[in-house]
């Protein structure tokens, strides 16, 4: 089981002082939100060409907020070499891709700052960004923290 300390050490970040370093990161299979990202169980559409790749040991950078320098990283958990990821951008720009976590394995979604870490249990998930309604502008805008 990962703690904040062990999870954040995956991305080379230290635990922000306000988070409890040794608190366990629960591994869940239900939808979870991490700031402006949402991970929820969903199967990819049939007609979408997918390119499943194993999540590398040094992780995948999902969203990099250059304003804050913070990043959402996707890592595989302990003893979880089968965790796969595929990029699948949706027309509305919300979907980043899909995550496949095999039985008895896990994945970690880690934020380099305030949002800490989320453990993800077996299943297939869609990972979406967040948007807000445009005021005056022509289209909805993506939110990045």
């Amino acid at each position: 089981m990962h703690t904040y300390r062990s999870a954040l050490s995956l991305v080379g970040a230290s635990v922000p002082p306000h988070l409890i370093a040794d608190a366990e990161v629960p591994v869940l299979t239900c939808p979870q939100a991490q700031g402006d990202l949402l991970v929820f169980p969903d199967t990819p559409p049939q007609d979408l060409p997918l390119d499943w790749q194993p999540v590398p040991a040094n992780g995948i950078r999902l969203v990099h907020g250059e304003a804050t320098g913070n990043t959402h990283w996707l890592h595989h958990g302990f003893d979880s070499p089968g965790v796969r990821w595929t990029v699948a951008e949706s027309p509305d720009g919300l979907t980043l891709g899909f995550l496949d976590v095999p039985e008895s394995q896990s994945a970690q979604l880690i934020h380099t700052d305030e949002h800490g870490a989320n453990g993800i249990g077996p299943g297939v998930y869609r990972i979406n960004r967040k948007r807000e309604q445009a005021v005056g502008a022509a289209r909805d805008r993506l939110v990045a923290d």
Partner: protein
Amino acid sequence: VDRTATEFARERAEESLRVGPLTDAERAAVVDGIRRCYDNAGLVWPDRVVWAPSPVAGQLIAVRLARRHTPTAVRVRAVAALVRRVVPVVVMGASAFVPGVAVCCAGIAATLLVSLPGDAIIAPSNEVPMFPPEHLRGMWVAGLVGGLAALVMFVRALIADNGGIGSNLVMGVLMTIFATVPAPALIAEFPGLGVSWLLGGFAPPSPGWVNLVLAVGLGSALVGAAVTGGVVRWRDRPPVPLHHPDPAHDRLVASLPTATADDCERVRFVTDELTGRVDRSVERAVQDATGADVDVRRYPVGHLGGHRHTGQLAAAARVAPDRADVRAFVAASRAGWWWPHTAFVVVGERPTALRLERVADTQRLHSADGPAAEWADGTRVYAVHGTIVPAGLVEEGWDVEAIHEHPNSEVRRAAIELIGWTAFIRRAGWRLVATAADPGNPPHELALYEDPLRRLPDVRVLVMTNGSPDRSGTVRKHAETVPDTFDDPVAAAAWQYGCPVRTYRQLGRRT
């Protein structure tokens, strides 16, 4: 993604957004670069370089010089060409309007002449008229007014039809007779009759009076019709204004080096993302500051060195850094924008300060407490998250009323973001629509607000609480906009993430 291509693009972007004055040697290198660009484009080097302290100053200096370098003969020819374009516009408008009015007036006049006593085209009838004749004058005047008003409505449709004069004449007559023009004329006659009746007591008009009224009324109606037709037509299709373009800018743009390798696309894309928004904001501010200037429209001089070429140039510099044309343009772009003309070159200084904000992989102007861009001559551009805003918003701050009064919705949004949505909805008296438990984030709630006065169309605001404390240890509340179609805060939150509401309700954890 090739890291080096991205790195290269970032360096190019940084280079093009550099601030502070140039040294004399750097200025000489810039001018030399521009000279080589002229050579490569096959243009004669004008050997007249004017430095401008800011893009606004540069734009104005360039158009003033362009005007000075436009020979009088060329200007006279342009005025003659303009007159040649104006005459048909006015004639077409008049020809569409006059026949309709003429038919309308003639019809009403003839009808009334027959019934009025005194001098008439046809001998007076012996029959007793239905109304005392003196009241028919009021009827006639009102009928004329009603008919004209209706014609104004129809003439637009007529003018939109791009026929010749002949078809205009025919259409005008047909429309008057068969369209609804005579109806308002007839309808208007009755209130006129009524008014005349109520005022009463007029003696029967003399033949001279009737003739005078007919002549003045019909004459002015026809003149009015011609003028109105001309004006309407002019507004619909204004003739192209006086315009003296110079070929140097287009020639130089055509000579810009291009590159097409895969790697280049990446370089171009990343450079554009990092510089494009910044430059577009500056361009917008320059347009706002100079757009009303007559010379800017009449003697346009386009600039180089802006966002339209930065990415293209960076891509070319990636592939062929040593090619002569690439080196020339890269050297020329080390200052600010430059305005090429066959008779001179205006080169803009770099800004003295740029305050930028990075969002994802893009960059934009942003400063909440002062100008976002500044030049040595005092030119200042204020921007909030990339939106150009009036100086007063940043320097003094606006209250809620001032925000709502601003006509531009982008500026309104920027102003609201400056004080924050949470504070804004409180100050502006927004109404709570509903609250709901925040899934995965107990014990917090989601709250949905709306503006009872609907001053911002299509928008409601969702106030939520962060899943984790920030570094100061406080759990922050923040607010984001959602479509006004949602009444349920949870449905609005699910929309934000593009997730079915049912799934969103099962949210187990928010961090």
